[in-house]
């Protein structure tokens, strides 16, 4: 079974600017794959190449085993695309938008009419199918774009920042839908919302300056940042500085940070926790909690905190 997506040494240059450099990526079929990166990292360029909207300068890209350079039409039969911009036709009703898409995919009328009915019902848009997209809320427009991308039953769904600009309720509705179709197709998602990637994706790639800089599950990426160590937060009733000095002397404590009444302790391994507790015998400890790194911390540590243009 071929990978849903495979790129080898993929490079894209716009004149002197290199948008993608020697990019290697493999996405398993049926997975939800997240691609993260700051603005200008090359995410959209990669999606445009994979969806055959753009040609690479060099290297190979395969979608479901098909070459993006020579088998574009076959690839486009298999993919659904939710672009960053809504790209809905404001002069057509919601249903007419879907019918046009179905015709462009060569679907037969008796087949697409039934499919449109089912999807509109599923996405909660059946009651508005005769309305124009301009009259829809942002969340409804996004749902309509997702509906359009799913109409021809794609094997691979590209979602380019699908929830940008949506309110939390609409965002969660899109998440729910992505989860509901997961497994039946591969989902390739780019997003600026790290929580979204954390919630939805089986594997995540982080890219910057056109290069892949990290790849793995959320847990693997977090462990890579913390070096596999464990970070605990210990809140004292008083004397945090004094107890921090005691802990600093311990061999298994890798790093220590004091903030008010809370001491943040990074341990070499979790087994050291009992030694720490023993050392704090009699101390006024109010709470000990495991502090998990967030994906945002991983992202910032890999791509830097500076604002991108």
């Amino acid at each position, binding site marked *: 079974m071929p990978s849903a997506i495979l790129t080898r040494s993929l490079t894209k240059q716009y004149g002197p600017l290199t948008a993608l450099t020697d990019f290697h990526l493999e996405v398993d079929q049926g997975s939800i794959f997240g691609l993260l990166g700051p603005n200008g990292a090359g995410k959209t360029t990669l999606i445009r190449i994979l969806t055959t909207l753009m040609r690479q300068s060099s290297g190979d890209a395969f979608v479901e085993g098909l070459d993006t350079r020579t088998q574009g*039409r076959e690839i*486009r039969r298999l993919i659904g695309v939710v672009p960053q911009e809504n*790209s809905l036709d404001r002069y*057509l009703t919601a249903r007419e938008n879907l019918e*046009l898409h179905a015709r*462009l995919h060569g679907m037969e009328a008796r087949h697409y009419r039934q499919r449109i009915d089912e999807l509109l019902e599923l996405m909660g848009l059946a009651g508005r199918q005769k309305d124009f997209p301009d009259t829809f809320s942002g969340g409804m427009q996004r749902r309509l774009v997702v509906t359009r991308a799913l109409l021809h039953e794609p094997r691979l769904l590209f979602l380019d920042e699908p929830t940008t600009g949506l309110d939390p309720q609409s965002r969660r509705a899109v998440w729910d839908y992505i989860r509901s179709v997961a497994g039946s197709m591969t989902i390739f998602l780019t997003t600026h919302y790290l929580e979204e990637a954390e919630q939805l994706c089986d594997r995540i790639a982080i890219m910057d300056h056109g290069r892949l800089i990290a790849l793995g599950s959320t847990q693997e990426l977090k462990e890579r940042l913390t070096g596999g160590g464990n970070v605990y937060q210990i809140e004292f009733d008083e004397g945090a500085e004094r107890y921090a000095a005691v802990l600093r002397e311990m061999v298994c404590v890798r790093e220590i940070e004091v903030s008010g009444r809370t001491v943040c302790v990074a341990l070499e391994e979790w087994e050291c926790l009992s030694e720490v507790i023993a050392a704090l015998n009699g101390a006024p400890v109010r709470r000990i909690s495991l502090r998990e790194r967030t994906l945002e911390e991983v992202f910032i540590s890999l791509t830097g905190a500076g604002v991108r243009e």
Partner: protein
Amino acid sequence: MRLRGSFAIWRRDMLVLRRNLPSELVAVAAYPLTIYLAFGIGMKGYIGLVEGVPYGLFIAPGLISMTAVTAAYSESVWSLWFHRRVQFTIDSYRVTPISVSEIVIGKILSGFSHGLVKGLAVGLVIFAITPFRFPLEHLMAYLAFLIPGSAFFSCAGIICGTVMDKPETIGRVEAVFIMPLIFMSGLFFPLSSYPPALVPWVRALPTTALFEGARQALVGGVFPLVFALQVAVTALCTFVAAVWIFRRKMAE
């Protein structure tokens, strides 16, 4: 070549045209009819006969042709620009299993159809409110100019809508290039009005072949073959250029 995609896009454009037809026709008919009333009726007492026909009759075929070709051009240029730069629907077409050529051919067909529908609508209005009459067989010869003429301007609109990213540039091209080309091609006056040295150059323009040939066909009942071939070849060349330029732009 498969044309399923072209037909789907053309069908979409015709649905939108049908929905807006009454308001579109009022807007489209207003300009040529104003010119007809102002020049054809208002000036006829002063101008008399031009090349043996009353002035109102002389300008009528040109006004119908002008409506058709400007409608074809406007629909193509603005539609393509809007779908490419504002609505991003061209990108949504491009991720379906149709080719770039199918998209551009669909848009050319739409511009052409707009031109034809609007030109014929203005023709009917002129026919209804004026004494302008012609035999039916003249109409067939006239369509041999109007159809490739509309196709030529539709392709020209596609080229402009493809290469121009700013709407003000599109407006400027229309004002500086398209309208003078139409107006200077003998729409309101005979070519004999030009200084003799200029006439061969003006006759070489495809717009002259279109307007002059269309007038001769509709009013005089003759079929100027050279003019007809000139319009047809220009339409064909512009079509090839439009498809090629659009494909190149999309490959960028």
